[in-house]
């Protein structure tokens, strides 16, 4: 089949599906099931479309009626966009499976019509952003994506906290769009074209537009110090939305960086070093703050910041190596970045869906109210554990494969770069990454242990039941992807190199070799464990009794370590960063031996938020108070404004 036909058909189907959703959604009762299956169908069609096209590069330009004023919408489908489309479709497919069961638990909290319109618009616009070939199409799709996701974040808008989150998210995405528009306009004035293919960032004048575009993308993907919106927006949105936002939407800025800046030949060392530093800091910052979170989704949100940081770091290494004409390292780092996009997309959407199941079934995301779900939700636990192991980059799983490539690129850079400064920088990054890895283990062991193991900490958690089969299917599917992509990483890496070298402007030069025999290792590990189990534990006599309670009577859920106490030794070490304080008060008559009440308060302050963003906002709103005088509420005054503006514009027109 001609790939152009497939491509056109898939676009047409998407548009018509969105329109159909729109039409259907106007009815007061929307069937979540019908909408979810529609989503699944579109996603599987898109998966087929991105496979069927082969490796051809297809361009498409809309004709007369479907134009934006005088500009046609231009699209481009090549290896890179096909790869990202595949990831998006897979995530959407899983979400389609997950939705019916999950949304039935949110009845009354969100309105189905509004939710589905926004969701289909979000899906459509994400396809559009990935496919767009020029700045105008890109920014239009980008805006639709930002706004529809903001609507989705505000799904449960009766809560004040959700309103606040949606506002913060809107603020962040407006700033990002503003910076992007600025960068795009600047590039247009430099090159006279809106088409990404004709933008060249290697020239000296392009450094400022490149900086604007980079900052815009950083804000949208939540890189330090612009990550503030993420821990608000992700927990507020329904799990399905968070899964797609964290799984795919946070990769779109990365895709944009590759498509616009890297394919545009960005080579300014200042910007590359900025990317390096921002990536390194956000990976550390994200995981450090994830450690002290007590809301499961907020914890996952901070972990997203870490992973976006890792991807940005890989891109920076790739650019640095290319500038130092070490193409081998550049290729390894680039593949690490793209592979990590895929891995993090699968892992994070899995984890958010699992967190959504826990939230729906145990009615809480608060780690202090969960626990002991292992016996009640064993399948959800298995999926969450696979995701958690994977994001800690534990060997046979996929998180390790991409992190290994990142380590390899850093290691080879330390070995081969000429300047001592660069070598020191790379060595520091290796050290930082290993600390980040160990912290990630702490974060996710805490999450796994406190949510699923031990005793239930609340009545609702005690009576939780396993999620519905559809919800489980989605998670099992993603978990299988994580394990499969990890075990078969060697062949996947060669596929990714093929994709990267077959895009419009190749971003890698030669195929790279993934030297680890992961399938063999995984098989050995599994076989050894099986043999040990059969030899020793299977035939062992087991007696069930209670946990050792020192002879003081039965243990309760309160005697277990809580999320705060588990993280306390580590948080103490990093208290200058976290502004970590604990306050314990013990009260009672004979308070030493028989305390009646023990209160422990843990306090963490986000320095950035309290010391940087809030003062800035205060200044802005102070200045805005002056502007408010213009809004006097008198129609006469407004007519004067209109008239004077008109006169000024006319005068300017004649002068210029």
């Amino acid at each position, binding site marked *: 089949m001609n790939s152009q036909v497939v491509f056109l058909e898939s676009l047409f189907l998407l548009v018509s599906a969105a329109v159909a959703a729109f039409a259907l959604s106007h009815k007061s009762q929307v069937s979540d099931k019908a909408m979810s299956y529609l989503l699944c169908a579109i996603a599987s069609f898109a998966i087929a479309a991105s496979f069927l096209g082969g490796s051809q590069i297809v361009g498409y330009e809309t004709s007369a009626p479907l134009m934006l004023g005088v500009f046609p919408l231009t699209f481009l489908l090549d290896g890179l966009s096909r790869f990202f489309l595949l990831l998006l479709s897979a995530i959407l497919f899983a979400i389609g499976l997950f939705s019916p069961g999950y949304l039935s638990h949110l009845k009354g909290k969100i309105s189905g019509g509004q939710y589905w319109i926004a969701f289909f618009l979000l899906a459509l616009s994400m396809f559009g952003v990935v496919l767009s070939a020029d700045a105008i199409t890109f920014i239009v799709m980008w805006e639709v994506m930002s706004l529809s996701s903001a609507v989705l974040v505000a799904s449960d808008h009766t809560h004040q906290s959700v309103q606040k989150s949606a506002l913060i998210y809107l603020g962040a995405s407006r700033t990002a769009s503003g910076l992007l528009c600025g960068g795009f306009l600047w590039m247009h004035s430099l090159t006279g074209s809106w088409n990404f293919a004709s933008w060249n960032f290697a020239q000296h004048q392009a450094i400022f537009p490149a900086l604007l575009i980079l900052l815009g993308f950083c804000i949208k993907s939540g890189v330090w110090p612009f990550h503030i919106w993420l821990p608000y927006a992700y927990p507020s949105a329904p799990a399905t939305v968070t899964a797609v936002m964290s799984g795919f939407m946070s990769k779109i800025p990365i895709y944009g960086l590759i498509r616009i800046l890297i394919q545009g030949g960005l080579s300014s060392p200042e910007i590359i070093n900025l990317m390096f530093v921002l990536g390194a800091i956000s990976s550390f910052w994200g995981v450090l703050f994830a450690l002290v979170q007590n809301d499961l989704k907020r914890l996952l949100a901070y972990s997203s910041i870490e992973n976006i940081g890792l991807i940005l770091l890989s891109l920076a290494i790739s650019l640095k190596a290319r500038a130092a004409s070490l193409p081998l390292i550049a290729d390894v780092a680039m593949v690490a970045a793209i592979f990590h996009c895929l891995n993090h997309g699968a892992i994070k959407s899995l984890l958010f869906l699992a967190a959504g199941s826990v939230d729906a079934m145990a009615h809480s995301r608060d780690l202090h109210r969960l*626990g*002991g779900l*292992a016996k009640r939700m064993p399948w959800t636990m298995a999926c969450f554990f696979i995701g958690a192991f994977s994001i*800690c*980059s*534990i*060997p046979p799983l996929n998180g390790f494969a991409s992190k*290994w490539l990142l*380590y*390899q690129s850093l*290691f080879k850079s*330390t*070995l081969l770069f000429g300047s*001592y400064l660069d*070598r020191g920088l790379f*060595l520091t990054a*290796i*050290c930082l990454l*290993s*600390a980040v*890895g*160990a912290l990630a*283990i*702490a974060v996710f*062991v805490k999450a*796994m*242990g406190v949510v*699923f*193991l*031990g*005793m239930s900490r609340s009545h609702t958690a005690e009576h939780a039941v396993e999620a519905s089969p559809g919800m489980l299917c989605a998670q099992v599917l993603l978990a299988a992807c994580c394990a499969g992509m990890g075990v078969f990483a060697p062949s996947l890496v060669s596929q990714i190199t093929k994709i990267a070298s077959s895009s419009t402007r190749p971003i890698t030069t030669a195929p790279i070799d993934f*030297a*680890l*025999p992961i399938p063999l*290792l995984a098989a*050995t*590990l599994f076989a*050894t*464990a099986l043999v*040990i*189990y059969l030899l*020793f*534990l299977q035939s062992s006599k*087991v*007696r*069930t*009794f*209670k*946990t*050792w309670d020192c002879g003081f009577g039965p*243990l309760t859920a309160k*005697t*277990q*370590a809580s999320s705060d*106490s*588990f*993280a306390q*030794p580590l948080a*103490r*070490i990093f208290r200058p960063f976290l502004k970590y304080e604990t306050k314990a008060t013990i009260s009672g008559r004979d308070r030493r031996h028989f305390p009646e009440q023990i209160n422990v308060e843990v306090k963490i302050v986000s320095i950035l938020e309290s010391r940087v963003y809030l003062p800035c906002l205060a200044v802005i709103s102070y200045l805005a108070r002056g502007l408010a005088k213009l809004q006097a509420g008198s129609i006469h005054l407004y007519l004067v404004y209109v008239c004077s503006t008109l006169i000024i514009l006319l005068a300017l027109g004649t002068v210029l």
Partner: protein
Amino acid sequence: MNDINTDVLRSCSHWILFVSSIAILPPVCLTLIRKTKARLQSRIGPPLLQPFYDLIKLCRKSETVSSTMSGMFRLASVAGLATIILLAWLTPWLSYKPWSPSADLFLIIYLFALARVFSLLGALDSGSAFGAFGASREVTLGLLVEPALMLGLVALGLFCGSSDLRMIFSYPQTIGGGAAAGAGAAGIWLLVGIAILLASLIELSRMPVDDPTTHLELTMVHEAMVLEASGRNLALIEFAHALRMSIFFGLSAQCFVHALASVCRINTLTQGILSVVGIFGIAIFVGVLESLAVKLQWRKVPEFVAYVVSMSLLAAFVAAGNGGIKL
């Protein structure tokens, strides 16, 4: 034909030697530490094979499992031991090692992390505060020790121009290594050897970070985590811990052997013997250390770790400054 036969014979003998080392060395290491401590306290100490007797005794007993636990608890000990056995196969901690598919240093570090995650999950499964606080401390120690260990191994990797530990530990036999490398090389090997040794004291929760012989689980790390284990389950955990100890001591001993090899020439057989003797030597050293040192206050542990990190940093910066050998 004859050549092939000798090759097969050699690899067979390597395998037999290696498997018996895995089975024998870990308990013997434990005995050596205990024996040294006993002698320094003017006691006779346990017989040489005491850990074996303990393991056999544990295997005969039945297990007690808490009703709070899920299947994770028993899975954790099995998977933990399997990971450590895989690591014993991959890591070049002995000079006479059979063929292994890879020994990438980043892979090794993250496989150790896998073993650690399993032991942590096993500890959290019982719902006991002992296990959870042990796990919380273990995770803290992991954070402190992992960068140091990785930096140490990366320093060796930079020095030898490869991230594969097999290449690194066969480096003195290649061109540019061996006695030709001189005192500078010996310095790097020595620094990394000390760093790994100190790191292993933390990683294996031994003195001065944790006292494995106190009777108060509240203050402990490893023993607190395995408090709920019993019978065969405990046997698996104890053996895995002992094997992990031998791997760490072996890696450290290998570094010292290579430091020696870069100042004077030693042949393969001597190297093989030295690698085992080195492990025993380190075990005795740890025994002496445990008799003389006092347990550090928990808050002072980061300061102790700082020594390890600075060893590794020193080695790494020397190696990075050298630029290694371009392969």
